[in-house]
């Protein structure tokens, strides 16, 4: 599914996904990218939600050139890679590209090619995938080295996270999936949720895997519910820029530090 390793060192590709929308996926991707950039990594966030992108909204960017122009040959890939406020780069899809919300062979090839071409120039590529599960999302995830599922303690979010994990394990053969729990109200709640997800995975998913291996959910960290997040989102700024000392910002920074170590 992935291209063979090139000679030059290539970026690690991490897909950030959630199943349900509105759990802070794009917020997390953008701030994680900023935190990794502060640690010295060259980071690109690719808006892989081709039909319903909103990374531009979160970052308050008004791109003239998007992935759409690259797909249609109107602009080069270099022109479409934009600097974002947090010291990382973004490749935006542009919202409302309904024709790309379905995976056609064209979109499939273009995504593979774009990731291949940008990989040598970055240390890490974050694929911010769309809400819900679609062929485009599954395809984007299949191009990533690692997947991170972000959930909140809300039952609908946990159910969707579980459904996504199940799909990734059975369909894409993922055996390690990273977990971040956002909007936790009590310290340690994230760990409890991860354990609960692992319990259900062990009971219902692992037995269906034909290779006899198990799926490990790797806890990456939890982010507390924090009014600072709301403030940053409403002002369309990065939390790490606006309120770097807030509890949520520190939590994201801690996740980045663990990831970069």
């Amino acid at each position, binding site marked *: 599914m992935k291209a063979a390793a090139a000679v030059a060192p290539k970026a690690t590709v991490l897909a950030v996904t959630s199943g349900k929308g509105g759990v802070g996926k794009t917020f997390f991707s953008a701030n994680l990218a900023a935190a990794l950039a502060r640690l010295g990594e060259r980071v690109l966030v690719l808006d892989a939600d081709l039909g319903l992108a909103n990374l531009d909204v979160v970052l308050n960017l008004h791109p003239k050139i998007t992935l759409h122009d690259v797909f249609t040959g109107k602009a080069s890939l270099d022109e479409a890679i934009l600097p974002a406020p947090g010291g990382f780069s973004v490749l935006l899809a542009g919202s409302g590209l309904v024709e790309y*919300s*379905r*995976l*056609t*062979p064209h979109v499939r090839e273009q995504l593979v090619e774009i990731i291949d071409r940008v990989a040598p120039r970055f240390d890490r590529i974050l694929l911010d995938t769309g809400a*819900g*599960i*679609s*062929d*485009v999302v*599954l395809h984007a995830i299949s191009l990533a080295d690692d997947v991170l599922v972000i959930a909140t*303690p*809300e*039952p609908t979010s*946990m*159910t969707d996270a*579980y*459904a*996504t994990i*199940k*799909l990734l394990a*059975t*369909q894409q053969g993922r055996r390690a999936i990273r977990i971040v729990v956002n909007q936790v109200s009590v310290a340690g709640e994230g760990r*409890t949720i991860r354990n*609960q*997800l692992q*319990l*259900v995975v062990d*009971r*219902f998913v692992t037995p*269906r895997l034909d290779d006899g291996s198990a799926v490990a959910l790797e806890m990456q960290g939890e982010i507390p519910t924090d009014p600072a997040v709301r403030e940053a989102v409403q002002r369309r700024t990065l939390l790490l820029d606006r309120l770097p000392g807030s509890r949520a910002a520190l939590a994201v920074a801690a996740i980045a530090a663990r990831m970069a170590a």
Partner: protein
Amino acid sequence: MRPKIEPNFAAAALQLDGALLLLQQSGHALPDRARSEDAWLQAVIDGLCELSSRDALTGLANRRHFELTLASEVDRVARAGEPALVLMIDIDHFKRVNDAHGHQSGDLVLKAIAVALSECVRPMDTVARFGGEEFAMILPNCPPSYGLAVAERVRAHVGAHPIPIGAAEEVTVTVSIGGAFAPQWVRSSPLLWVERADQQLYRAKSEGRNRACLEEPMVSHVSAEEKGLLFGTSTFAELG
């Protein structure tokens, strides 16, 4: 909104001879002249629409109609989460029939297979001639656990009925079947769905023909049992 049309005016001004001939030739009853102008024209148009969605030889849905139905089924599955199955069905060694018995016999075989396939499905299912000797079926609301049984039934039914191709001659043909389920709740595309079923058809052919192969269905459904375990402990009781 529409301008008032004088009786017989529109029909007289339009070139409908070709359309009427097509309808007549394909066995459609021509619309009743005694009806109102609008109703008569509507009946002609309806007849043409019906005609353009059918395969001329077999009378099954044609490729165009199949693709339309498939697209709406993909949307329905993504929205409602109901499972749906697509089967691609190909006659084994059809060229041999044509070579040994001639193309007219080949046509008889295609027609007979069309009838056989139609006998295997529910009224809500779509049976189409996809092209050449390849047929396709859309089976809405078909649970994954039934998929293989349905495909097997189709395969066995075709193989069990010799097809008369002359006064005293008959041939028995077999079919290979490939099937794939539309991933439930997933925004997918008709193209990929058919492609996945085609891969299974290829597998059925390469494993020796006269067999049905189905793709493992994607599992994104969360059962009540799984939810029970996910939320069942006291820690999560307050979360419902």
